[in-house]
């Protein structure tokens, strides 16, 4: 420790530095800023973190993260329009939601198939997906998986599992760059890819 700011503060810096997009230096700056603005930042943040920690959970149905047992999207009758979008991660779901274009529901897999990384179909939420597609009269499944080998393997696997059940299967249009993750794309690109989706 170069700067002896006290054990508690150093511990906070240390934790903050583990967050994506933050390094040790920016974590230190952030912590200092919070302490300087104790009333406006530090205290509301501490309260907010405690609340999220107590309430955040995975939606039983789709895997989205919110404060509810079943998330707002799954609870909204207007969104039960027969369309279901399959994404790898909650961050992809949130990226799709940013565009406000998609009006159906989601299913978050929580990863992609990878034999080398020891991730099989059961480790993902694929059996649950098949169940939901049948239970909810889904008419179209939209695959919004990354264009990586593992992402596409997962897409093919899912298609194999739900094919023949009278469900239209589409995928986001090409133009999503190889290895590109939804979360890193701008809203316009995602909207365009969704509008131009094609049969898989």
């Amino acid at each position: 420790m170069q700067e002896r700011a006290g054990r508690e503060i150093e511990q906070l810096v240390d934790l903050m530095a583990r967050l994506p997009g933050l390094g040790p230096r920016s974590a230190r700056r952030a912590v200092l800023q919070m302490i300087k603005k104790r009333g406006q930042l530090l205290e509301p943040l501490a309260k907010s973190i405690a609340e999220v920690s107590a309430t955040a959970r995975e939606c039983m149905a789709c895997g989205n993260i919110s404060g509810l047992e079943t998330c707002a999207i799954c609870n909204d009758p207007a969104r039960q329009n027969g369309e279901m979008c399959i994404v790898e991660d909650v961050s992809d779901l949130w990226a799709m939601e940013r565009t406000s274009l998609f009006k159906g529901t989601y299913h978050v897999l929580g990863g992609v198939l990878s034999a080398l990384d020891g991730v099989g179909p059961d480790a993902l939420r694929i059996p649950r997906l098949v169940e939901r597609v049948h239970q909810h009269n889904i008419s179209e499944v939209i695959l919004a998986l990354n264009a990586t080998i593992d992402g596409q393997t997962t897409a093919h696997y899912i298609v194999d599992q739900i094919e023949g059940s009278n469900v239209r299967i589409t995928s986001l249009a090409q133009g999503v760059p190889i290895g590109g993750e939804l979360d890193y794309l701008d809203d316009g690109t995602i909207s365009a890819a969704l509008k131009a989706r094609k049969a898989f």
Partner: protein
Amino acid sequence: MLAVRSLRLSHFRSYQSLDITPDTRPVVLFGANGAGKTNLLEAVSMLSPGRGMRRAKTQDIARTPEALGWKIWAELHSLGQTHQIVTSSEGGARTVHIDEKVTPQLALGRIARLVWLVPVMDRLWVEGAADRRGFLDRLTMSFEPRHAEAVLGYEKAMRERNRLLKDRVQEPSWYAALETQMARFGAEINTNRDFAVDRLTAAQTDTSTSFPVADLEIEHTSQAVSADDLELAFAEDRIRDMDAGRTLSGPHRADLRAVYAAKEMEARLCSTGEQKALLVSLILANARALAQDFGAPPILLLDEVAAHLDADRRAALYDEICELGAQAWMSGTGPELFEAFGDRAMMIEVSERNGASEVQIS
């Protein structure tokens, strides 16, 4: 024109630092063994995607004992445009910047086409199929840079499938998902390789050259070549492959056969000199074909090029390189091996002093 017009190195192998500005002539590196000639060629080879001509791990390239990582800056003239390429590693994976933008390695293939001959390849026709396949893929990539993506995609999907086989996973949908992708990439690989062989064949016969024509043929491990056939074949092979614990047939097992046409003799049965002449012939054919297709011959890296070539053959090679207008980087121990160039080449002496390589332009 395709040429490196400026090259700077930092902590790359035996070079603590280097700064040279080649003109568009071929570059000759001469000097004692161990002086650092091959290291310099290797640095140039890092301007193409992949691990360079030694297939080295990035951490092995860093100069020891400092082990600070390494960095290459190059200015590349490619078809009337100038690109700044910076590639480096601080111990982990190497990063590439083209014109100050972070770029995937594969993007290098679109602006820099490079082909090399290294001494271990003097035994290419008698060694295992893997080396010949690698040579074919490098030539193919020079015609079609996207070949690299197909090869990487195929290999990644195959490694996944091999893991399932090894673990004896019984999950037909999972295999099928991987095999679909292997089939698609595999068919692309086959098409690209066929195209390269066709272009090389045409470029060998449509010209007068003092190097022997090699009749080329790709040997497949099975009849399945198209995407549909490959997909069926992979599915049929699952049980056999499971016993072996890996994928036994497919484009990753193909071989390149060459016959010395004038003698109707298999390359592997030819003399050492003839085998080398066949290799040089293919490299020159590749350069001629690329001059037509891409607009410029590739940058050639010819390590210890004079080995197994007599004085006449050497002179003929130098004439053809000059005629092509290719920037060839060549190495050899003594300058006398390159006498036939006259002043048509840039001569650089490489030596070692106090544990670091140095160059002197003569």
